[in-house]
């Protein structure tokens, strides 16, 4: 996925908007990447998005997507329920992730999970493992992983996360400066914002702008204009 909104223009086809079923053509010997499949020797776009060519790899940057968990992802989960020893976290994927009490950062008594995390509360956690049927296990053991007690959680589509972070984290820094707030972007598209009311409001409107116009060039200029 490209780091900013301007697609690389090294190849004529790159950045072109493609639709499902479109024959991409002219990619002999290339490898089919994300959103592309080789059918009867031809490269076929499998989803709506911008065509990307990276060396020998042809792929598509999707314009809409749902979060698919991967092991190691930093995500923000919302507690949806619990049993005596497990919490169920909504991480924005098709399925809830489980957080066993053994992977919580506290000493939890069997049956006392609700004392530490209750329904509706948000946690910063990491995906520990995902199996082939998309069942995920989350962990809160690790640096910086914690319960989120203040601030608010905003949702963005997962495919625009690279634009929210920007090249080398430049966009993220710009957003932090804009609202003078703390910001954590989860790989599942949830963004935790913590700061003063006005700052958080500014960041929310900036995120809305990114959400609406992430696929159009000149995103950075629009965000910078917000701060002026």
């Amino acid at each position, binding site marked *: 996925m490209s780091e900013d909104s301007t697609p690389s223009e090294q190849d004529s086809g790159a950045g072109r908007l493609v639709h*499902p079923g479109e024959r991409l053509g002219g990619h002999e010997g290339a490898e089919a990447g994300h959103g592309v*499949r080789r*059918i009867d020797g031809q490269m*076929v776009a499998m989803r*709506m998005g911008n065509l990307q060519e990276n060396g020998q790899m042809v792929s598509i940057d999707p314009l*809409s997507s749902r979060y698919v968990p991967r092991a190691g992802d930093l995500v923000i989960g919302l507690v949806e329920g619990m049993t005596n020893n497990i919490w169920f976290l909504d991480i924005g994927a098709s*399925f809830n992730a489980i957080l066993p009490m053994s992977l919580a950062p506290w000493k939890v008594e069997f049956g006392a999970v609700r004392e530490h995390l209750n329904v509706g509360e948000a946690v910063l956690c990491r995906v520990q493992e995902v199996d082939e049927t998309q069942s995920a296990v989350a962990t809160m053991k690790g640096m910086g992983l914690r319960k989120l007690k203040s601030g608010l959680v905003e949702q963005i589509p997962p495919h625009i996360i690279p634009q929210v972070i920007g090249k080398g984290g430049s966009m993220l820094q710009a957003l932090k400066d804009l609202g003078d707030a703390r910001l954590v972007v989860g790989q599942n598209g949830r963004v935790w914002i913590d700061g003063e009311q006005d700052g958080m409001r500014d960041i929310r409107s900036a995120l809305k702008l990114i959400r609406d116009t992430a696929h159009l*060039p000149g995103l950075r200029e629009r965000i910078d204009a917000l701060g002026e």
Partner: protein
Amino acid sequence: MGYGDYQCMDANGIREDGRKADEMRAVEIECGVIPVADGSAYIKWGKNEAIAAVYGPMEAHPRKIQRQDRAILDVRYNMAPFSTTDRIRPGFNRRSREISKVTKDALESVVDLELYPRSKIRVEIEIICAEAGTRCCGITAASVALADAGIPMSDMVVSVAAGKCNGVVLMDLNKPEDNYGEADLPMGILPMTDELVFLQMDGDLSMEEFKLCWDYNVKAAHDVHAIMVDALQRRYGGDV
């Protein structure tokens, strides 16, 4: 007007609504009309109007309907009670169950279900105004909504229909032609390969008539496909 009295064409070969035999009704498509859905599309096909919305992939409930190796499509075709001159009793009926089933089968042949095991993709099709050919309308709108939702598909299903009225093969029958006509042939076509993924035939056609209907449908499918692609591109501001 009884069966057999209806004249679908005048002496110049022009149909009641001003079309020629091989001409289809005007089609307009717009994407993203339901902001809370993962993908959606509105289609206006002649006087037909429909909205399709796609939600998911999400966990399939109850668990017994889950497939361990792939997602399931949950397609629901419904006509609004006010969509026709005779009020339709709300809820599932024999006809909507049948159309939901054929739509599901048509879409299953293109959607990459293996990517989302144990999940469900919900496709809701609501007919707002009906004037013959709503199943084609629904399948086409559902394809656009699925593409808008970012669901991986090997092609977009385009559904069109041809038929026969007063012994003449006609493209895209309207309400009186469908009611008083002799045959109707809706088809689901993959425009990239001209493969057939859905076919129903109501009434009788000779082999020659069937072939002519097929040719009409394939040509129309390509025209509708161009409109579908245009709708998707407009949604995302054209070429970036």
